[in-house]
């Protein structure tokens, strides 16, 4: 990547300690910063220009997750006593472009859509969907299968196709694996 921009004279920030799976797909210009441990599970995809910051608390992301461009994962300010565990994603979580996630825990198969904001200490259940531009306030607990859409309307999804959706996430990861050149060594 030859860039005409002038390189910063500051010494590069120290790399955060990481524990990366060997099947992880992580783009060259993803940004992993901070001082706490960042754990990324198997078959997870991290897009370019994703910001994972473990400056205040660790980040643990499960397998088959997709973290999209310009999304910011990790606490942005000092945590409260019960938020010391940092951000935990279960398997099959999708975070779309520009979303800001500071949640305590995000359940399996949940989708955080474009530019959504998840506050600190939030616990999101399994197979939830936080619609684009929706916000979840600090400390909220969202039960399983909740769909937040429009300007904060909520409903419980009872369509029962969550297994199908998890399968589709797997396929999406397969496609992204072909599209995104990975540079695992840079972050280890």
């Amino acid at each position: 990547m030859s860039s005409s921009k002038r390189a910063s004279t500051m010494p590069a920030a120290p790399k955060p300690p990481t524990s990366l799976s060997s099947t992880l797909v992580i783009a060259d210009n993803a940004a992993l910063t901070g001082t706490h441990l960042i754990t990324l599970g198997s078959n997870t995809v991290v897009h370019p220009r994703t910001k994972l910051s473990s400056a205040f608390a660790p980040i643990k992301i499960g397998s088959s997750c997709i973290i999209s461009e310009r999304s910011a994962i990790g606490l942005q300010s000092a945590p409260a006593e019960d938020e010391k565990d940092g951000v935990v994603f279960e398997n099959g979580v999708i975070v779309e472009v520009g979303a800001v996630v500071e949640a305590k825990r995000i359940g399996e198969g949940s989708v955080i859509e474009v530019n959504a904001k998840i506050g600190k200490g939030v616990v999101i259940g399994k197979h939830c969907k936080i619609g684009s531009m929706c916000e979840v306030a600090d400390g909220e607990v969202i039960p399983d299968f909740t769909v937040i859409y429009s300007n904060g309307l909520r409903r419980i999804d009872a369509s029962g196709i969550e297994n199908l959706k998890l399968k589709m996430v797997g396929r999406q990861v397969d496609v992204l694996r072909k599209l995104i050149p990975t540079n695992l060594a840079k972050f280890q």
Partner: protein
Amino acid sequence: MASFTPYTYFQCPCTDTLIASLPFGAEAPPPESENDEDERTFDPRAPRANYSLYPLEHLLYCEDCHQIRCPRCVLDEIVTWYCPNCLFEVPSSTVKSEGNRCTRSCFQCPICISPLSVSSVEAPPEGLGAEYTSQSGPYVLNCSFCNWSSKEIGIVLEKPNSVFQQLSKIRNKGQPAANAKEARKDSVARTLDISTQVIMEEGGDEDAEEVVLNPETQFANLKSFYLTQLAETSPTGALGFTGDYGYGSPGALSRIMGLYTGVSFSDKKSKSKTGTMREACDALEGFQASRPSSEKAISRLRKEGWHSTASAEQMAEQTHDAQFVSELWPVANMLRMKRSKRCKTCRHILSKPESKISTTKFRIRLVALNYIPSISIKPLQPPSSSNPAGLLTPLNPTQFVLTFKNPLFDGVKVSIATPASTPGRFSSRVTVLCPQFEVGANTDVWDEALREEGGRGGDREKRRTKAEASEGQHQAEAGKVWERGRNWVSVVVEVVPTSLRIEGPAFLRSEAQQKDDGPLREDEDVLEIPVFVRVEWETVAQDESAGLAAKEKEVKEKRELAYWCVLGIGRIAQT
């Protein structure tokens, strides 16, 4: 305070004249006391003015009446109906029989109104050659926005197309959707059945009570019942008019004639003979006793909670009653239509869209923008940094540049007139420095450039350069055009905004203020100037009756158009 954008509204003359809705063949009434009309100043704040002022873009122009036409003085005609989702044209007969909903596969989500898509419940096939196999198995309607799925209310479709038919089939519990005609036939047949049964059994009414009609059948039954009632009670008198809407009968013909001529053909005697109509009394006639199921609903509400009830917006979208979210059905998309517009006075078409759905072009579109000069307003001095909102300082003369741009291919003579002071409680003084001027034709841009090759900077072109402007030549001269271009002219208008204060000695107040000294009302601080614009130009006569001879000679015809405009200049600062 939010910044103010200057605006220009044009007044459609249809509010002043009575010819707007004349019936065919009627003579135009003589103009009532023309002098009165001319002398009156248009008041943009009058309550009536609200309904006659439009931005230029909203107006049409009738080439035959040579007049501005607003949305109120045109007639709308439907060209086609179409579904906005699948862009299929729907014939008018289908609209009449099936209603104004798409009868193909276009549905909107009952929860959040976004469009639904059909998808398979089965997992997509995997393995070798999976791309070549088509998806199979039961299908559901899915909302991609709120994740609603028709599976939630137990609807699973067999095939991915013609969803409307499938849904109505499910709704009628297996029976194909009967259209109104068949249903009527059916019910008539059943009525005959029942009546013979009743005669035979004398009171077999227990099973009749059991019948629960679905809304479509109930409507069809009720409709057929009332139609027969109408037929029975209305006199089948001399004209043979049976109350049925059969246009073949001579009675109906006379009724139609009556509609046009305004003369009632039916004699008064037969009207008095009308019998009394009765109401529907059993299910076959569409009668459905309301079964208050509140007990059930309350217990359900207790069990499932508030979230299981449908919101008012969701219920409004539904075609049938629904109390709970689980009773909400997908809503078929509403059709839209393309409309053509006709002049109310001369019935000429002013706007006609292409009847093909996928094109957004127009065959005919006579918009006023192409016929009358547009007016734009800008302050002569740019707003200073101390006054960024551009508020007008009371009693401080401020100059504005009005730019008239001519869309016609002929040069026009424009004369503008304003009242010396604006109407209303707070009247500001207005002076147009150059009330009469000529605007060049809207010729090809290159014509001018090529012509000016020889004599650079002809006296017509008088554009102020930046240097000139910066030298402080901001002084506008009376009677002279400020700037002039190929097809535009700008003139300067000077306003002296009034003070918005009402206090003070009575002799300082205007008459209107003495009458009404209430507090400042909404938007009363906006300085609006009524302007009477009169446009004159000469054009080649388009009169077809003049024939070939006239065409050869290219007879020039004088045209004239006059109308009121309102210029919204700015807000007056409140001190």
